[in-house]
């Protein structure tokens, strides 16, 4: 009988990623309501020292697969290793981060473990001993409550949504000698983007611009506001299709679906596919000249004015506040 709530801890460049602590905290809650233990699977090379930190967030046991072939991440090697640890320990629930790497891994694991996975969940709970995973579908135009009949019941959790809670447990480390697959893919190169750039999918605050920015140069004032707020800069499909901003910044149904604490929409009218992608943000500010723009129906605070005047003033105000 499958037992235990497992997570796949994500690490990069020598440190655990924040989503790992979110997963651990969410797993702890599920495990407590089941009366079971939390296990974490950590893969990489020279990662054993990171394992102890997971105990702080409620992890009872950490299974460390340490192997040069597990660094950097490749789908084949990690999915093979994680699947082997899962089969060996037979958890009833397996949580993965819905990060770029986590989503890639989760889908491969579904194939290897012949189970089901609820992708990009915004809530998880236990009902009748079973996992109920709540997730946006149609980019957030509706939500689904997903039940998984396969084993383990898998869910990937959207980064930045689940609170991190300290809850010290043993975090006992077990080293495992997991297989790493056939090496049919390898990473040739990692091209890092400008240091300090925050990805919209992981940002707490997003300052986003649309057609109203009038051109790529208009984004300068958004970059400045984002800079003082520690925010990421996002863009609507119109702005990306016009070539003003990179694809990786696009928010919406054909871009990234986001749920930051604060979403500041500048010069975005609010096409339905854009609204779908951002309406689960905690707070939404819309700045637009057109008082009839649909974005105002989603906004907590609406500013009907020229964004080229309002945004630089907001930057000044935030600077004052944080000084």
């Amino acid at each position, binding site marked *: 009988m499958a037992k235990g709530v497992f997570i796949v801890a994500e690490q990069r460049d020598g440190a655990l990623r924040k989503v790992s602590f979110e997963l651990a905290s969410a797993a702890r809650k599920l495990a407590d309501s089941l009366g079971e233990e939390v296990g974490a699977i950590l893969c990489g090379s020279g990662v054993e020292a990171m394992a102890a930190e997971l105990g702080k967030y409620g992890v009872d046991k950490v299974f460390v697969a340490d192997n040069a072939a597990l660094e950097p991440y490749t789908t084949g090697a990690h999915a093979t290793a994680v699947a082997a640890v899962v089969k060996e320990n037979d958890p009833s629930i397996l949580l993965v981060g819905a990060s770029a790497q986590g989503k*890639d891994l989760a889908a491969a694991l579904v194939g290897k473990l012949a189970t089901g996975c609820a*992708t990009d969940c915004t809530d998880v709970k236990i009902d009748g001993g079973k996992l109920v995973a709540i997730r946006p579908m149609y980019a957030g135009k509706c939500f689904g409550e997903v039940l998984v009949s396969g084993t383990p019941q898998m869910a990937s959790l959207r980064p930045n949504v689940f609170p991190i809670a300290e809850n010290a447990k043993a975090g006992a480390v077990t080293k495992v000698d997991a297989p790493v697959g056939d090496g049919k893919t390898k990473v040739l190169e990692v091209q890092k983007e400008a240091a300090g750039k925050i990805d919209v999918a992981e940002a707490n605050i997003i300052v986003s611009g649309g057609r109203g920015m009038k051109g790529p140069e208009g984004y300068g004032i958004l970059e400045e506001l984002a800079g003082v707020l520690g925010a990421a800069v996002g863009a609507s499909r119109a702005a990306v299709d016009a070539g003003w901003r990179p694809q990786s910044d696009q928010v919406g149904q054909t871009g990234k679906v986001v749920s930051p604490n604060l979403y500041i929409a500048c010069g975005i009218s609010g096409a339905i596919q854009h609204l779908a992608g951002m309406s689960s943000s905690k707070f939404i500010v819309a700045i637009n000249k057109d008082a009839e723009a649909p974005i105002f129906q989603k906004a907590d605070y609406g500013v009907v004015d020229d964004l080229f005047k309002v945004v630089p003033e907001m930057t000044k*105000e935030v600077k004052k506040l944080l000084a």
Partner: protein
Amino acid sequence: MMLNDAVVLDVAPFGKEDGVNIVACVKQVPDTEAQIKVKGDGSGIEEGGIKWVMNPYDEFGVEEALKLKEKMGGDVTIVSVGPARAMETIRTALAMGADKGIHIDDPALCEADAYATAEALAAAIKGIPYDIVFCGQRAIDDDSGQIGSILAELLGIPQVTMVTKLEVAGTAAKATRPIEGAQLVIETALPAVITATKGLNEPRYASLPGIMKAKKKPVDVKKAADLGVAGASKSKVAKFVPPPARPPGKIICADDTPEGKAAEVVKLLREEAKVI
């Protein structure tokens, strides 16, 4: 030509003679502008009035397949799981320039999850030669983003997901995929599954002659039983619910100057919303 056939490979690395066998999987989904309404009993969404289109991410896969065929020769097979209306989407891909289609149309697969759908696709693809399989990185209806990866596992071949750039050379491919804050350049052996995302290419529109020709291109319609699959899902959406309603917001008037409004909104974000 099968790439894993060493004898053929000796003669024609990546098929100069008969070209590359390419598969592109497509799904029919509601248009991005569609309003999605949940049925009263939460069993699904209302399908009336929805405009159905090819999943935008699958378009990138079809386009890449066609570009590869134009460069290296070969043929492109479109595979889709879906009800009768999904035939329109297969025809669209054929009108873009694909050669033939396989339509897996079975009520048993109507509510198939990612695993059961991938199983049906894998069974269909196993029956034809393939060197590279394209999928969209996710479908914009269920947003599950798993099909390509499960398919790769079931076919026993490697995968690269979320690809924004692809170069095929010999029996390997070099693919670029974004992660948070970086781009990875990944080399993969072929055959492989590649899942396409925005940035890979600009999908072409079907031409009028293309649309005419597409009508005569062969599409094989298959039932689950023909493929030896049962549509056994591993997960299900037990209930569909509308998104939580947002409370009505307020329009910031302040003293009706941009400076006043900016100061007011920053103050509210700090003191009321407590998000900065």
